[in-house]
């Protein structure tokens, strides 16, 4: 056997330090694509396939049913109420936490995460206990003609609770990183507090705010557990889209269930597309605000 000296065809030094060997690179990419396919693309295709199994006309008929229409409207209404409120709450919370120093701040930061760590069902039960007919407050509310539990206000409250952290969570790190100097500069230049907020703070946080709002919106439309508990699932009155999907499914109306699921998935796509379009449109500004 002769000893041969092998000369690498490409010297190792030509490879940047952060680049893995080709095999590793492709293995990672393949793994990522495989996971996406199995967990994301395939189920999504299955949803639409199932919905359209008996054709477009059949799917659309299931959507035009009054109960289905009412569910879609209810979901859109709840999102339209909850998202602006939580955007405002989120901005206020993030502002209070990042721009001022006060006692109990750490505690409040923990509390903001509570809806993430509490099971939605538990959250729903909390509202039933507080505002249900068995509590003094609930009994009074029912008597005065403004029931909360098993009615739309309960759904709004439960959704508000569940989606509260999204905007605040997005904003806090961004606002912490940006600090207070730009706001102080605006004040020394004579701007009022409100003008400073509108012309300096808001533009600086708008991307984080947009992400937070989109996430909040997606969850508000998709929330199941907490809403299921407080809504009472009254058809045509307190049934949101996710609840309607479950009902159809349990009644073996699979085309109706998957069509509704498809609509919910489409709403998520619209959200994603909107985000990507805005990112693409304002790429230059994004770069300008981040590279500072």
């Amino acid at each position: 056997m002769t000893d041969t000296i092998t000369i690498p065809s490409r010297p190792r030094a030509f490879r940047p330090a952060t680049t893995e060997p080709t095999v590793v690179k492709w293995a990672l990419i393949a793994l990522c694509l495989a996971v996406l396919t199995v967990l994301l693309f395939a189920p999504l295709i299955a949803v639409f396939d199932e919905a359209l199994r008996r054709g477009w006309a059949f799917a659309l008929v299931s959507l035009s049913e009054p109960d289905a229409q009412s569910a879609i409207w209810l979901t859109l209404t709840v999102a339209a109420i909850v998202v602006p409120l939580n955007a405002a709450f989120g901005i206020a919370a993030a502002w209070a936490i990042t721009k001022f120093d006060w006692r109990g701040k750490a505690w409040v930061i923990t509390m903001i995460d509570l809806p993430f760590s509490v099971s939605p069902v538990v959250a729903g039960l909390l509202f039933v206990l507080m505002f249900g007919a068995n509590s003094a407050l609930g009994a009074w509310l029912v008597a005065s003609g403004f029931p909360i539990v098993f009615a739309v206000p309960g759904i709004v409250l439960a959704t508000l609770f569940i989606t509260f952290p999204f905007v605040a969570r997005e904003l806090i790190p961004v606002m912490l990183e940006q600090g207070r100097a730009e706001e102080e500069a605006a004040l020394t230049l004579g701007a009022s507090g409100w003008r400073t907020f509108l012309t300096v703070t808001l533009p600086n946080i708008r991307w984080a705010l947009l992400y937070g709002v989109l996430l909040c919106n997606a969850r508000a439309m998709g929330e199941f557990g907490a809403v299921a508990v407080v809504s009472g699932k009254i058809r045509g009155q307190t049934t949101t889209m996710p609840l309607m999907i479950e009902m159809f499914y349990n009644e073996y109306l699979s085309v109706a269930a998957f069509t509704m699921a498809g609509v919910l998935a489409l709403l998520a796509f619209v959200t994603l597309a909107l985000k990507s379009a805005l990112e693409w449109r304002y790429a230059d500004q994004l770069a300008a605000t981040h590279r500072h």
Partner: protein
Amino acid sequence: METPVNIEIEDIAKEFGTTAALHPVSLTIPSGTLVALLGPSGSGKTTLLRILGGLEFPSAGRVLFDGSDATGLTVQERRAGFVFQSYALFRHMTVFDNIAYGLRARPSKTRPPAAEIARRVNKLLDLIKLPDIGARYPSQLSGGQRQRVALARALAIEPRMLLLDEPFGALDAKVRKELRQGLRDIHDTTGLTTVFVTHDQDEAMELADLVVVMSMGRIEQVGKPEDIRSRPRTPFVREFITA
């Protein structure tokens, strides 16, 4: 032009929680001078500057502008042109919009028309010797350019005084030297009473008419650069200026 403001600081003290950032300090800053607050970090110099600008309020004592009490004036009412340590330029606005910000923020009665604002902004860009950068964003500027834009933005509001927090702190040694003269020139052109904070004794000695040496929340010595150099009054000053 109105005569530059004369600033008197009377027994100003400031506590943050239980720690004293400033023990009662008193100081007179004569009209039109260029003053350096010199000291190591934690000496209270930035706190004193922020109190002058209305960004921080003293726990005790008074600030007088031209003999009248300004302690309770809000940051907006102070009309102090403030240059921040890392400049705090509005990153989402062009240089032009940054400089115009203060004029546009005025109430409609005193706000100049758009054409007048543009004229003033361009004049300021000439003053800082960067006439062509109005359309750029802060992220596209060098450190030295950012500092000068921050200066122009502060000057745009026709301030009663100019306050600068470590104006050269974020720059490399070569640019620092160039911009020192730039600040001196701008002070001499505008005639404004100017206070700047620095931890660099060369900078203070070379640039300022009057140097205020601070340590541990106290004023150690106030004097002309040559006096401080030749007759340091305390061991701290002697050590600090020869370091």
